[in-house]
């Protein structure tokens, strides 16, 4: 295997942050958060097979203020990653590379993410309070 002095891409600091680059790194960060949340999903599901007390424990963890904060963050991450993922699929099909379209689809992702996160939170808190 030949390694060593292979060219490096320029470091991130030399670029001015733009909507395209911000959304790109956010896609990766939300992806990592969601990958980690697979473990919460596994804990939640499997706790139910350990009986009443174990499941009640898991439920109270997720409904604590810290648990709620995590779940809100994950809801945001899911909607962002989902919307921006669809944006990626359009790129893979060869569409939407014009600068204007890139910015518009970027803003669409942001509006969708905030709107759906808000809607989901409103529904969840309405059910939780009832």
């Amino acid at each position: 295997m030949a390694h060593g002095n292979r060219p490096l891409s320029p470091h991130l600091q030399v670029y001015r942050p733009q909507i395209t680059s911000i959304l790109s790194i956010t896609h990766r960060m939300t992806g990592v958060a969601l990958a980690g949340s697979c473990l919460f999903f596994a804990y939640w599901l499997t706790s139910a097979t350990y009986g009443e007390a174990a499941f009640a424990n898991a439920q109270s963890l997720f409904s604590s203020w810290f648990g709620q904060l995590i779940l809100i963050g994950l809801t945001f991450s899911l909607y962002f990653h989902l919307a921006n993922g669809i944006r990626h699929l359009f790129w893979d099909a060869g569409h939407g590379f014009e600068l204007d379209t890139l910015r518009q689809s970027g803003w669409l992702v942001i509006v969708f993410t905030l709107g759906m996160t808000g809607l989901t939170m409103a529904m969840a808190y309405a059910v939780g309070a009832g």
Partner: protein
Amino acid sequence: MGMRTTLGCVRGLGSSNDGIKRWLSLRLTGLALVPLTLWFVFSTIGIIGADLVTFKAWVGLHGNPVLLILLTITMFHHAVYGVQEIIEDYIQNETVKVGSLIITKFTAVFFAASCILAVLRLTFGG
């Protein structure tokens, strides 16, 4: 370069030919996760704060066990491919890279298997 042949210079740096399969898998699992995750979010809103009896009833309800198993497989699959891409992009050290990839895959398979078994047990009792 020196005495090395042109083939010797490029060997080990090129395509391994299984990239397309992974590229496509990441996108197909991503596409499948759009309806699956939306179903999961809006379906679980209905069981916020549920006790075990209510939860078991929800897991076993109609198509829920099938959707939960599909969600588990697709989600862990997509997560592994995504994390793998990031590990391969950012970790230069070959030993650390391969080690991280193995840990990622073993962890995902273990938890995915646990989730599937949990869904089956909660659905069929036990």
